[in-house]
């Protein structure tokens, strides 16, 4: 199947990673293949941050998913493509978090084991 489809004046570029579904709406002249890689890079970032990301990570930490997106893409354009730099920025945010007296992951705390890695390549 083709990962692109036309929708109104836009193109939808979509990709599925196990239980995670991503789609982007881009303009006619935008680069479709690279958009697929935008999705991939975002998945990599999530994966690196959460460690084998699954949908539960995103549900329970939806705000983090937003913050990471803001570091990576802003105003619809790719802002920083270096994985290292984005993760560095997020790590810096985490350091600013004041009362980190719960060292364990919330998920573990709730007894939810991480679901198998969704990241395929």
């Amino acid at each position, binding site marked *: 199947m*083709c990962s692109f489809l036309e929708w109104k004046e836009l193109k939808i570029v979509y990709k599925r990673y196990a239980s995670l579904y991503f789609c982007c709406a881009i303009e006619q002249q935008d680069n479709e293949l690279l958009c697929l*890689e935008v999705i991939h890079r975002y998945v990599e970032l999530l994966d690196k941050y959460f460690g084998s990301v699954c949908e539960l990570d995103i549900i329970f930490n939806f*705000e983090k998913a937003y*913050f990471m997106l803001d570091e990576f893409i802003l*105003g619809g354009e790719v802002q920083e493509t270096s994985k290292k*730099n984005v993760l560095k920025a997020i790590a810096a945010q985490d350091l600013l978090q004041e009362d980190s007296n719960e060292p364990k992951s919330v998920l573990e705390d709730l007894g939810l084991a991480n679901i198998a890695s969704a990241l395929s390549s």
Partner: protein
Amino acid sequence: VKDSMRGLAVFISDIRNCKSKEAEEKRINKELANIRSKFKGDKALDGYQKKKYVCKLLFIFLLGNDIDFGHMEAVNLLNSNKYTEKQIGYLFISVLISENNELMRLVQQNLKNDLASRNPVHVNLALECIANIGSKEMAEMFAPEIPKLLVMGDAGDTVKQSAALCLLKLFRTAPEMVPIGDWTSRVIHLLNDQHMGVVTAAVSLIEALVKRNPDDFKGCVSLSISRLARIVTSSYTDLQDYTYYFVPAPWLSVKLLRLLQNYPPPEDTTVRNRLAECLETILNKAVEPPKSKKVQHSNAKNAVLFEAISLIIHMDSDPSLLVRACSQLGQFLSNRETNLRYLALESMCLLATSEFSHDAVKRHQETVVTALKSERDVSVRQRAVDLLYAMCDRSNAEEIVGEMLTYLETADYSIRGELVLKIAILAEKYASDYTWYVDTILNLIRLAGDFVSEEVWYRVIQIVINREDVQAYAAKTVFEALEAPACHENMVKVGGYILGEFGNLIAGDARSSPSTQFQLLHGKFHLCSPPTRALLLSAYIKLVNLFPEIREDIIAVLESDANLRNSNVEIQQRASEYLSLARNSTQDVLATVLEEMPPFPERESSILAQLRKKKPAVEDAIRARGEKQQQRPASGAADGAAASAAPTAATPTSGGGGGVKLQGDIAGAESNTDSDLLGLDFGGSAPAAAAGGGGAGGGSVDLLSSILDVGVSSSSSSSAAPSAASGASAQRKTVVVGAGASGSIVGEENWHKFVCKNSGVLYENDILQVGVKCDYQQSSGRIVVYYGNKTPAPLAQFASVINLPDSSLTNQLGIQVKPVGDRVGASEQVNEVITVDCMAEFSACPLLNIRFVYSGVAQSITLKLPLTINKFMQSSEMDSATFFQHWKQLSQPEQECQKIFQAKFPMDAETTKTKILGFGFSLLSNIDSNPANFVGAGIVQTKSGNIGSLFRLEPNQQAQMYRLTVHSIKPGVSKRLCELLETQI
């Protein structure tokens, strides 16, 4: 992963454990009540608690529920010193607060504070929030500030990155708010920044700014090329983390290649060669063995390759690169990756429009046809259709159209409509044998009748009517098509129309005798919708004329209650009119009234307009590329013109009974027809435009005219507005806006005389004579009004005021008055000088109100100022080719105005010429095939731009009537010029 909002996690967990929708709703409502009471409670909440609740609200919102409180608490969080609280506050606002929320002002104040913060993470939060919301108000407030952050030496790299994209977002919202400043060159030099992330963000901004001011940013071309060269020649280890799966900086490369597509190929040879080397390197890499088997590697590599090909196509100057690009795409056509096949088809579509690569693309025809037949993905098949359409020319048209027709039978419903249009256009454009064209269109109707729009069948009729050589064939073919047990209503329409006109051409054959033709048509009648039935009735009355022997059969149908008393008014009226026509008219009258349709004027196919409506992007892309494919929005949709012309045409010849109406009706049934069909014969049967413009001969259509450029520019009138307004206020006393006119307007007859001349008496009574003398230069004019006192007593308290009855005139005209004194002595004459600047086209007429006291009685006279749009028109000379080119370019329905009217003065050619020249148009000879017709051109000059206008006047001596057609760039202008000239001849 560190997180601390335990309450939030518990809540999310609860929601997930809900067994039903109702349980979930209940849990959410409980939580909302809880949060509400916390927010309202007496106990002050600390920042952490506020953050937690705001975050819960956000989650509830993301689940799809409305949130109607908590906004204030979120805004409060912005004041917090704690980063995470601020951050959640901004997130809530970005996701959830609409830009016209009353809290926005508070938000903006916080944004302002944070932008000024010394802490870069706070600045970044503010920039991200602005970029995510990007409202107009924010643009006003922040766009002037952000460039500083972008070019300031000490701002951190991340701030620069966010600032660039934030500014880009604001620029997209409100470009006028983003200042053009001395920071331009510093922004360009960000292309040289050491930090790749900064360059990546900055290129996007530059690409947008370039579109506004290509010249100011010209310097970015060579810088981008150097940067690109450094990237493509680097090894993948050089760029470290900016290398993506062995591809060096794919995002930055693509953005740079995009940026370069805003400029023509560089003029400087060194720079040009350098770019060519880059592009060659990229093309070379495509054929190297892959450095990785991962799809990310090939995607990133090919993303750069496709963008490079786009740039090659954009420059359209290097044949060897174009051909290489084409062969590379050809390989992708059979790649096993569906995505690549899709993109290859898409890019080839553009290559097909370049003259250098058109033939190279054609070599892949077979592969593309195979794709059409065998691709499993509809998006890919769609691209194949587009490509076949783009690569079609005279040499392969029959084959391609044939393939498309075959595909039509199995095509997805979603693309059938578009496919039908494409087939119809190709068949018409490349028909050398019109029987092939007729077959193709009838096949279309047979295979996909429901998807054949009105335009398609109108068009086949226009072409058959205009081409004598195909008429008999068309009649025979539709007759056979109608013999099928089931046929589409569109086929009945075409059949009815064509047999009504040309049934006689096949009547000799016993198999299609007159009565068989009639029976065949009438056999479909009861299955058809009312509009088709009405059309069939017109066809029947035409058959009465062609075949007197079946008159009685037709009368029987017309007088049946089903028609004569049909609840549909149109059917009823046609039945009764045609009935009396059939019963009472002599054969001569019938023959005149029901004469064969005259040829249609040549015009571009309205089908193209349809297609462009459906596929603006693709069509525009194709159009923007090569002149070969250039199309303008079709003029065909002259529904309004035809409809409004019909009654006009019917009235003057009412002596002819229903006759004229009948022809009008047939034309009316076909809303696309020109009013040439309306029964008034204007001498030259095939209008000159046909002979001159068509070029490719009678029936074929010139689809290729280019986009309008009459050598005049027209910019927005907005720039004129301020000066006009200030002019108006400075002259408050003498120029009044609004309907404050006192007394009724007098002297209308005299006013009309001024349309074609510039001096004379505008008004006269026993007391006062008002004379006018004017002269006009380009967009300015000077009107001198002479007030003559005819009495032996003075006129006291004399004053004149210019009144603008229509407030839009304030923006259209700049009027300055040098007022007269307040007294006109006995038998004295005074004059008043009015200077006028035409800011933009106008239709209304300023009024001149004169007040004075004569023998103790106050008098007030309101005159129309002899100031009309044509006064600002300069005649323009051009040759026949130019004239027709412009004429066709300006034939969108709103650009064209046509009037048919009774002559108001004796129809003397010399007088008419003088009037036309006085009106401001030129008279061009040797353009119209009919020497009795007048054609000419003029340019209306306004401060906001020139408005090219063309006219054609066709006198009909016999009927003492004229038909006047004016084409102009601006819709209102054609109408106004038409109205004005109509009163003069």
